[in-house]
């Protein structure tokens, strides 16, 4: 997952949106909808969002309240995906779990995005000393295996969903900083930036109004892929006991608790894993599709 991000980073870094293309976003959306796999990803992501939004309406049972008499029931007409070791309906828990996963994915990526954009923009726009200091710091953070660093930060902050989210957000910062820096470097040489400087804009205004809006494309791609990765990592941390704590209906903690009973009730671990798999797959497909759709270098090649 981590190296996947790194690969994406190097690919995304070079692709700032070309300016002065008429209605570039519409064209991008059209290109996106021409790809079957991207549509598949989009459908998965939309279904996930709908599930999370409508959880209280579509979940057949309470996701948290134990129901001991009906514990460890195999999938049936009353419990489509069976029940867990406390008799809770697994389908309902997966449905409510989508809320936690989406929340974690978006907030973790939000942290990486805000700090990464800030550092990357300074680094790319000003160059020189600030650039050198920020990039060296990023090299240092990236010298640590990503998941190990996330585990260490979570454990130091104390186990819990919020801390896991913060940790995943922090270890993601370097990737976004690099993407933004690459994009800013290619945008800042443009003539309209020159024009803005000549007309007396200060650096802050140029960065906010002229540079960053033209760096959006690679950021959107990276953030889409990043949400999938963040959801996967958060589930992993929860699985290790560092993230969400019971009885929260979180997918990773469901696997953690289910592994003790999997020899007699394999459905307890089977379905939460499938939920994670398809969620991550959906964001990956959508992210790949967005990259192909928004990358100017690929334009008009088909």
């Amino acid at each position, binding site marked *: 997952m981590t190296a996947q991000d790194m690969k994406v980073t190097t690919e995304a870094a070079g692709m700032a949106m070309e300016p002065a293309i008429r209605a570039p976003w519409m064209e991008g959306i059209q290109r996106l909808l021409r790809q079957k796999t991207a549509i598949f990803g989009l459908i998965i992501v939309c279904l996930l969002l709908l599930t999370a939004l409508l959880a209280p309406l579509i979940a057949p049972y309470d996701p948290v309240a134990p129901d001991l008499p009906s514990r460890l029931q195999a999938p049936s007409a009353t419990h489509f995906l069976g029940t867990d070791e406390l008799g809770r309906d697994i389908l309902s828990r997966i449905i409510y779990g989508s809320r936690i996963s989406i929340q974690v994915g978006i907030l973790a990526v939000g942290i990486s995005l805000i700090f990464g954009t800030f550092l990357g923009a300074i680094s790319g726009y000003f160059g020189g000393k600030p650039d050198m200091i920020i990039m060296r710091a990023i090299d240092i953070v990236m010298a640590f295996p990503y998941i190990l660093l996330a585990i260490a930060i979570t454990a130091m902050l104390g186990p819990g969903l919020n801390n896991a989210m913060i940790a995943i957000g922090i270890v993601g910062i370097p990737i976004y900083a690099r993407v933004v820096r690459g994009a800013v470097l290619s945008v800042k040489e443009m003539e309209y930036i020159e024009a803005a400087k000549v007309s007396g804009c200060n650096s802050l205004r140029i960065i906010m109004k002229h540079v960053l809006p033209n760096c959006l494309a690679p950021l959107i791609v990276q953030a889409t892929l990043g949400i999938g990765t963040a959801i996967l990592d958060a589930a992993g941390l929860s699985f290790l006991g560092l993230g969400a704590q019971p009885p929260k209906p979180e997918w990773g903690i469901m696997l953690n608790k289910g592994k003790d009973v999997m020899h007699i009730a394999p459905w307890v671990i089977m379905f939460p*894993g499938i939920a994670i798999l398809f969620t991550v797959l959906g964001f990956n497909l959508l992210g790949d599709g967005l990259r192909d759709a928004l990358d100017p270098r690929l334009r008009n090649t088909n």
Partner: protein
Amino acid sequence: MLNYIIKRLIMIIPVIIGVSILSFMLIHLVPGDPARMMLGERATPKAMQELRETLGLNDPLPVQYLRFANHALHGDLGSSIRSKLPVTEEMANKFPATLELSCFAMLIAVLAGGLAGIISSVKPYSLFDNLSMGAALFGVSIPIFWLGLMMIWFFGVNLHILPPSGRISVGVELHKITNIYLLDSIITGNWKAFKDVLAHIIMPSLALSTIPMAMIARVTRSSMLEVLGQDYIRTAWAKGLPGRLVIFRHALKNAFLPVLTVIGLQFGYLLGGAVMTEAIFSWPGVGRWLFVAISARDIPIVQGGILMVALVFVIINLIVDILYTYVDPRIRFD
């Protein structure tokens, strides 16, 4: 060439210093008293005071760091709070297990992923290509911890054909030389142990290999596709060279650089990031050791162990960089 290597070596010095600062600071990033963090809420003031003295936590942070760095330069990273063993010794005990698992997983990933990538590039958009690239997409999205559990459930619990955890069965004798069990059993000609170790390593290495395998397959395919479209390949075909020769000698050689990048990067992650796999399969390696130490807030291991893992990662990246210049003479010396 030598100049280049020396230059790269000098360039990693600031990174190593930074890495050591960050490893040291990890425990201090959080507000609060490290001694209380380790001993818990119910610790007596006396016990906390003793721990602070042992670890030198009463000194100012820069003093603590300089002491840490000075000791580290002399090969001393302190001793574990729980086992009392030196951190370096524990690391040396755990590292062979992780190295063995990572190498085996990488071997599977390179062979299977590389082959799938090559076949896909030779017959693009064929059934095989679509299936293997579909599988690769699932491969990068699958949660390893879940895949591991499903494997244990299927092969270990249901079919009873593979042991669900550990490196070697209790009661199987093996004379340990390198502590890389597969190697040791081959050296000593102990085939009973070899079979047992092999059975233990299959599931964790398969689980660990999914992500690198998927990435190698995708990168090999795209890189090969690019090379196969070039003029000199057409010439090679036109000369009537056998396909094997064109694909492996002419094309693969030139398509290898991006694949090498992925292999190098992934190998670094396998060595330090195999935490999930090692935790699920109770593999006694570095990842599991660090995870347990982090959970128990064993400060010397957290600081020293993570520092060593990061150093291994930096060194592997350096080796990959240097290998580039061999594979692609165009990027030499810059």
